């Protein structure tokens, strides 16, 4: 329950990730113009990365991989789905309902540009 509430709270503020608020604030200020905030959040970045390495993963696969709760995962997965980064199909495996996620072309591009962005940040620091 607690996890779910952080997931919701995080969006209007900024990514509730590990390192201190100061670093996040700086990232927000100087990188915000073209940083993809949608996948900057840890769990969402994780979902995208896991899907980039697999053709598809089910909801429970992702839950195990990300070591998170149902509520938290579904909230973040829905955000990615709404952005068109991942596609979701629901089907029945016998009587069990299954949800399967795939990375869309748009999602893959978003991850690539995010990686490029991070790399350019690192380069920038090295050259300065």
């Amino acid at each position, binding site marked *: 329950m607690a996890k779910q509430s952080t997931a919701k709270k995080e969006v209007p503020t900024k990514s509730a990730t590990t390192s201190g608020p100061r670093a996040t604030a700086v990232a927000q200020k100087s990188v915000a113009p073209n940083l993809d905030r949608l996948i900057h959040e*840890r769990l969402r970045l994780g979902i995208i990365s*896991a899907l980039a*390495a697999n*053709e598809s993963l089910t909801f429970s*696969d992702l839950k195990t*991989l990300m070591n998170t709760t149902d509520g938290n995962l579904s909230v973040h997965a829905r955000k990615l789905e709404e952005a068109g980064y991942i596609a979701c199909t629901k089907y029945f495996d016998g009587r069990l309902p299954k949800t399967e996620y795939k990375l869309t072309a748009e999602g893959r591009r978003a991850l690539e540009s995010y990686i490029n962005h*991070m790399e350019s940040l*690192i380069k920038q620091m090295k050259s300065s």
Partner: protein
Amino acid sequence: MEPIRLVQPAQPDPPALHERAMDNLRYIRETMERATAFTGISGWGEVAIGLTAVVASLVAAHQATNTMWLAVWLVEGTISLLIAGWSMDRKARAAQMPLVSGPGRKAVFSLSPPMIAGGLLTIVLFRAGLTNAIPGVWLLLYGTGVITGGMFSVGIVPIMGLCFMALGAGALFAPPGFANWFLAFGFGGLHIVFGVIIARKYGG
């Protein structure tokens, strides 16, 4: 008016940003590695290994001497290793993940200790003339390797390992003469059945 200079205060900020970027990249890479290890075992590769094992068991059954029988299975073992390596590599590439090195390494590290143990025991048992015990030892040790290697993989992989172990235990206590059948059923049958399930459920 001095205090207004506070515009450029904290100098450790840029390194923090730089470190965060590195940390993000590391996180992406680790997640991808974990996710690939998760389903990195190639189902179709296992089906192929299973088919070669069925052929090997047929060929081995027709050998006149124990030495030839063992030779057939050793060749089969080498072929299986090559198929496994090649198919896992292909699956990792298909996932467009050239930076994946973790999953393959994990598989090698967890499978090789029981394989080495199996190799040594094979020599000892063969010299002692206990050829009938060899299939049980192979199945049992292969099963343990699959279980440990599959601990971080999809749940079905350790289950396959357990099936191998159960079959190996059966082979050890079965009457002589059934040994080759246990190998056909294990390395052939189990690989094909589980390979198809993995391939259909986990993308190849």
